[in-house]
């Protein structure tokens, strides 16, 4: 390299270094807001660990801090997170209060509307009000401006399927699948595939249902989502049973039972054991049916003891 080129390179390096120094500094955020964000982050972390009490305490702190500086968006975020945690904990009344409070704060055209409507739909679904849940799920879909459209559409599809509108549900689930693939939302992509599999199963198209369940299973395994893996395995069991392959179905349910039991989900494990007992009875294998039945009772007992 000649001297001129060397000097040029040096000049370029110096300029890029100085460019870094001259770069715009991050706008300072008020202390209370920073603390609130930190509590919100800790709450999300606690929720992911399954520590719902700690999560709720952190969201309450975040809400208090955001209220102290009248930051409406921050308050809505804290309330939606509280509502979601309360719902997952089974406290539907608490979740309803949080959602209603967040809704009263929501300004028109807010970017948070979709997440809030979505949570309201999930809450109504948990309460068993399918038509109201669908109404809010559609509102969430309409308000979505980001890359969560696939997730929103999945919920609409699931609700349609539960209401028996499988043709509409299929259309929604197929669109959701495309959107989730595009947005690289792998867990939601698996959800879309599972919904499609259920639809195919109800329509009597076992092969396609099996294929969709297998695809969902592969994605859920990739993500290590135990409860969903068990659901996929049960789905494959249902497909095999519908096709008359009771031995194959029993094998799938046995796998689902093991996944649920080792994941600590005794209720799902007991449900798989019950189905397993039914299949053994169909096969005429009374001892194994009896064994599965005892296993189910044991699991239910362990669940109740917990």
């Amino acid at each position, binding site marked *: 390299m000649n001297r001129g080129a060397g000097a040029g390179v040096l000049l370029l390096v110096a300029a890029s270094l100085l460019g*870094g120094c001259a770069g715009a500094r991050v706008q300072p955020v008020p202390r209370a807001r920073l603390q*609130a964000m930190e509590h919100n982050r800790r709450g999300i972390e606690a929720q992911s660990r399954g520590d719902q009490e700690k999560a709720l305490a952190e969201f309450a702190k975040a809400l208090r801090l955001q209220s102290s500086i009248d930051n409406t968006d921050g308050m809505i975020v804290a309330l*939606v997170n509280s509502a979601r*945690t309360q719902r997952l904990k089974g406290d539907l009344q608490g979740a309803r209060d949080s959602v209603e409070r967040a809704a009263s704060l929501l300004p028109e055209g807010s970017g948070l509307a979709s*997440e809030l409507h979505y949570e309201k739909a*999930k809450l109504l679904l948990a309460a068993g009000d399918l038509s109201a849940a669908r109404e809010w799920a559609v509102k969430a879909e309409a308000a979505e401006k980001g890359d969560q459209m696939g*997730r929103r559409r999945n919920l609409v599809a699931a609700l349609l399927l539960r209401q028996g509108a499988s043709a509409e549900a299929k259309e929604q689930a197929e669109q959701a699948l495309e959107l989730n693939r595009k947005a690289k939302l792998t*867990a939601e992509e698996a959800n879309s595939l599972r919904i499609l599999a259920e639809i195919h199963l109800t329509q009597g198209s076992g092969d396609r249902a099996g294929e969709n369940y297998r695809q969902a299973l592969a994605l859920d395994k990739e993500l290590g989502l135990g409860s969903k893996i068990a659901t996929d395995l049960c789905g494959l069991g249902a497909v095999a049973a519908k096709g008359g392959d009771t031995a194959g179905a029993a094998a799938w349910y046995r796998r689902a039972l093991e996944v649920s039991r080792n994941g600590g989900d005794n209720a799902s494990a007991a449900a798989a054991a019950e189905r397993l007992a039914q299949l053994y009875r169909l096969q005429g294998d009374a001892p194994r049916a009896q064994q599965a039945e005892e296993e189910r009772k044991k699991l239910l007992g362990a669940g109740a003891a917990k």
Partner: protein
Amino acid sequence: MIKVEDPRFRNLKKKVGFFSVVGLAVLAVVILLIGKENDLFTKKYELQFTVDKGTGFTRGMQVKLSGFRIGRLKSISLNEEAKVDIVIQIDQKYQKWIRKDSTVKLVKEGLVGESIIEVAVGDRSLDALKDRERLTYVKTKALDELADELANKLQPVLSDVRGIIGYLNDPNGDIKQSMKHFNLLARNMDRTREKADALLLQAGGQVGAMSGKVGSVLDGTGDTLLKANRSISILEQKLPGLLTSAESSLNNMEKITGDLKVAEQTMLPKVPPLLQKSEETLQGTTNVLHAVQGIWPISSQIQAPQEKQFVPGDSHE
């Protein structure tokens, strides 16, 4: 004779002259600007000071006063005493700020910035330093020295914590002794209760026997008196033991109270200074961290906190 002249060469001399003048003028302006930038045309004077080590000093490094560059380091040389003589060149116009009591020190601009020589403004009532006069050098602490100082500050805190743990674990210490006394008291209480139970049972038996023989009381007052005498003698035998146990329990209680008082007197005064030290250390660490976070390129690596973060809302759950 026909003279053919190319119109482009008309007034050629004038044009060449004009461009030469403009070129020279630009050159003069550039030289002037560069000279001004490098203080070539500024009147200067020199000051000197001596340091133990020349580490960190380089020829040409900036000399600053109140954050403004006022000169440069001119020369560094080792003197006969193996110390380092440093001469700095200062712009004459700043001479009025540098007085007899002005000091000079080597500092860094930020944590990873370059080293500069910083001159402190002197007392206005004193005379300004003249050419070749000496400045007083003030030694500054390097990063490793600061770290050592921090470690020295932390050491007493840690040794206090160690002391408290040792105090709590000491088998002959107040806490362990108090626990021992508590155990003893509990054991004595059990024994006392057992004795009291036995006594009550015996007394109950005697009362039963006495009531059963109400009919024969009139017949054998002597027998009854004899039995009553026996009961009283049993009571007399048992009572001293009971009283001794109760007394020893009370003694143990007194001892425990005394131990607790001693423990309180020893431990309580240590707590506030310990807390104060810990708080100061934490504050210092936080300040250093904040300062480091603000420095480029570290600051560019720190992500701005996100406000709109949600608990993942899975559509399947």
